[in-house]
């Protein structure tokens, strides 16, 4: 894994071909990510359709305020990520690093809030499994399905946020060290694409779980 001074790998003719390939590759990867989440979204649609009333009852136990706060946090992190790409193009390295740091910080805040939300669910025995306790009118196994999906989907999303923090961290470190790999803005743009994808998933998750109408 030697990183040569020449930023163009041997299989490419020039830096443009390489950059375009990276971007296309990232988009194709995001397609696989969409399909990965897609199965869970389909399951959500099926059970929401079948258990409409229960899902409405169960969603009241989620904290809309915390969910809204987290939505704002993630949207802001997308802004800082977009700005970091902007500064990377302008070669303003310190601005870029500040924006990457802000993105990581906001992602951290998101995870901390998420942690307290999940902790409350554990305390109220709303975690699916043998210890699940349900006091509402709606059938317990249907309510359990709501929390199944809630934990599966927000959990998978949270894993993506953690991966995002790590990747942004590596990018920031390489940028800080003026590594030849990150000389062009394309690596930052690729990480940015990933991060926006993580945001968009949340933008769907938030209304599906927190904002169910009667």
């Amino acid at each position, binding site marked *: *894994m030697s990183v040569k001074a020449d930023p163009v*790998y*041997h*299989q*490419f*003719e020039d830096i443009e*071909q390489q950059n*375009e*390939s990276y971007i*296309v*590759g990232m988009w*194709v*990867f995001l*397609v*696989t*990510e969409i*399909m*990965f*989440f*897609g*199965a*869970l979204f*389909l*399951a959500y649609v*099926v*059970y929401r359709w*079948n*258990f409409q009333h229960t899902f409405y009852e169960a969603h009241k136990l989620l904290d809309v305020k915390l969910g809204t706060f987290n939505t704002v946090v993630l949207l802001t992190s997308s802004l800082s990520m977009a700005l970091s790409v902007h500064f990377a193009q302008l070669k303003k390295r310190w601005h870029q690093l500040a924006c990457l740091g802000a993105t990581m910080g906001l992602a951290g805040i998101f995870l901390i809030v998420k942690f307290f939300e999940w902790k409350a669910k554990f305390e109220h025995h709303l*975690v*699916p*499994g*043998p210890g699940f306790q349900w006091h509402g009118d709606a*059938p317990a*196994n*249907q309510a*359990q*399905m709501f929390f*199944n*999906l809630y*934990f*599966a989907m927000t959990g*998978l999303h949270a894993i993506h946020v953690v991966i995002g923090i790590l990747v942004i961290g590596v990018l920031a470190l390489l940028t800080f060290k003026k590594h030849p790999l990150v000389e062009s803005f394309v690596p930052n743009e690729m990480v940015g694409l990933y991060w926006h994808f993580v945001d968009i998933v949340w933008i769907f998750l938030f209304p599906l779980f927190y904002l169910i109408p009667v």
Partner: protein
Amino acid sequence: MSSVGNPTVNPEVGAKPNYLQNGHTVASWLLTKDHKRIAILYLISVSVFFLLGGLAASMIRMELVTPTGLMMTSDFYNRIFTAHGVIMIFFFLIPAIPAVLGNFLIPLMIGARDLAFPRLNLLSWYFYIGGGLLGLSAILTGGVDTGWTFYTPYSSMYSNSQVMLTILGAFVAGFSSIFTGINFIVTIHKMRAPGMTWFRLPLYVWSHYATSIIIVLGTPVVAITLLLVGVERVFHIGIFSPELGGDPVLFQHLFWFYSHPAVYIMILPAMGVISELFACFSRKRVFGYHFVVFSSMAIAGLGFLVWGHHMFVSTQSMYQGLIFSFLSYLVAIPSAIKVFNWTATMFRGSIRFQTPFIYALGFIGLFVVGGLTGLYLASMSTNVHLTDTYFVVAHFHYVMVGGTIMGFLGGLHFWWPKMTGRMFSDYWGKLAAMITFVGFNLTFLPQFILGYLGMPRRYHLYKFAPEFQIWHILSSAGAAALALGFLIPAVYLTLSLFNGKKASANPWGAKGLEWTIQSPPLTENFEEPPIVTEPAYNYDPEEAELEEDEEAESEEPVGARA
């Protein structure tokens, strides 16, 4: 890029070492980023898995010779046929052609130095090996009894076998094929040589492009689905078990949403191989090139809309079934276009009956039977009668073995001189291809009859229907011939590495960029970046006739022209 000239290099080959000579250490293979070496790694590993899956198959066939199950318990039989299915599908059929021949040929065919992401390519091989080892460890520690389909709730709640390990193995191997798919899509989009326009691409590349789209869209879905089964099994929280309020049929929908297109992941690359073989051995441009291109893409698209035909006897609604039935019939159209175009390619061609072409002709024969019996199964009324019988088993073996493995072997023989620089014995090659064809039909034609008569799949006891035995004996006898047909190439191809004639750059007289460079190729593939100025399969009909005359005069085999 290249190391210092090696004194042992054959002077004919040139001063630079070819990709096989460029480093002889274990590390130079296991850490290689050269797409050609990774293809060889894949070739060795998929061959091992094919052997293991074949061993399981031969145990199944031996057990079925008698109606009373003399060899094994029912539980053991369940584990054996599951092992056969899991190994053959996840670790042989899906990676076989794309990861071996695709890896080797796509950069050569489009005039690139490598795939776009060589490290990802190597990583995909390690994921494949990791998944394969997980799957094997599951089999060695007791096996799985769910069938390769892992239907819930049996797999998630009740099965007392190594479901978790197997699911993890399939999950990891799935990422291996996702990496390959991403790599191919980017490579085909961005790495084509100057002048290599989309409609100058060999059909082989097109079929891999279509395959990669299916891989990228389908595999993540089965990955998350298998993960959910695993979570349900381990933590007792899940979305498929009825006890937990879930719907097991949802699993079937998600599973077949991938696993039906997966059938096209297996067959489309084989179709690409067949296009190349027909053009080369008829010395003609493939008839209706554009139609073959679009039929590949149509199969990739329609393939995603037909999964419900696996579920006609589930709780799926009848109207849904009707639509799925109709859409399944539609897939027959692009498949038939391909078959007709290949046969039309032979018309007035200058045909050479060499080993790869025998496999190609065998492919046509078997694929047509497999495809047409698919129509019986796509029609709802016959499907209810034939569901889960040997008719289904015979149908998909005609497509998977008759189609994919004939394509794989045909392609392997065709590009063997390019990959290894050696010619194999054409006599043994033709013989093996014909034994395979006959043995295959003897194995699986009786299974159509068995299935029609009502023999269910996945049963090993049929003592209340002793009249089935004769068909089972025929089928098992055919399996022995089939095994012979697969073992002979293993022997003569291996021997050819040591005493085969040196292959010239273009031993078959084929068109295509991969035949313009030496065999085996240099590590960097092309000494000068190629510029493409002509369409694919630009065979000159008059030249073909001339060659034929020359051949009639001298009885020398084509391979000796080196």
